[in-house]
């Protein structure tokens, strides 16, 4: 649950969204990602750390370099940001149905 909220915060930031779009095209190192932004390198590193912690990005060692990949599975969850809203109504309606089924039995 906590993780899901963090994911939402992660994608709420425009720079992090831009990083995700960039890495989606191909896996790349932190240096190459940073070279695409005017932002200071440590700032980009911080963004990469957050995205990795939220499992939106995966790190992969390739020789001496660390490459960042998109975690497609996780991205699919996030793309569907409507799901918690839907789940909230589903939960309410399931309760409504249960209550009224018992009501009918009375």
């Amino acid at each position, binding site marked *: *649950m*906590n993780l899901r909220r963090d994911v939402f915060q992660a994608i709420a930031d425009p720079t992090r969204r831009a990083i995700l779009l960039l890495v989606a095209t191909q896996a790349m190192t932190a240096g190459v990602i940073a070279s695409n932004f005017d932002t200071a390198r440590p700032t980009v590193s911080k963004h990469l750390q957050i995205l990795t912690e939220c499992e939106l990005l995966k790190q992969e060692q390739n020789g001496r370099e660390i490459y960042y990949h998109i975690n497609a599975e996780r991205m699919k969850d996030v793309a569907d940001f409507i799901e918690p809203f839907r789940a909230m*109504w*589903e939960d*309410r*309606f399931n309760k409504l149905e249960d*209550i*009224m*089924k018992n009501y*009918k039995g009375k």
Partner: protein
Amino acid sequence: MEKKTKIDAENGKQDLTITRVFDLPVELLFKAYIEPEIVEQWMGTKVLKLENKKHGSWQFETKDPHGNVVFKANGTIHEFIPGQKITRTFEMDNAPFDVQLEFLEFEKLTDDTSRLNMHVVYRTPELRDQMLKLPFEYGINMAHNRLQEVLNKLK
């Protein structure tokens, strides 16, 4: 598990629809919307006022275990056709969101099944998206509150 509740929210629009088919006769589905003690059970909120008539008004309130108000909402009923339709406004107190307009249509499918079609119109597309994301953002808080309630009952 089969998803019984469907949300239709087209990109860039300021409205959305929520559709659900119930294993209930339409009369019982409608009753769940007009009897305060039943609304309280499935909405998980206290019903302070619910006037089921044209130009009537409603008011809901939820308190945490310490008695602090965590959710309060109100609105006016604009159209009330028993067993068929409720048109009403919905506004959260002390929240930076404008009022929204809700069209609730209750439809008989068979003697034992019915469908609810809820059409919600927001002031702007941005506001709609914000409201869609609320359960995502507050999910963790709600989980905490529920946990607290359960713990208090154990005391």
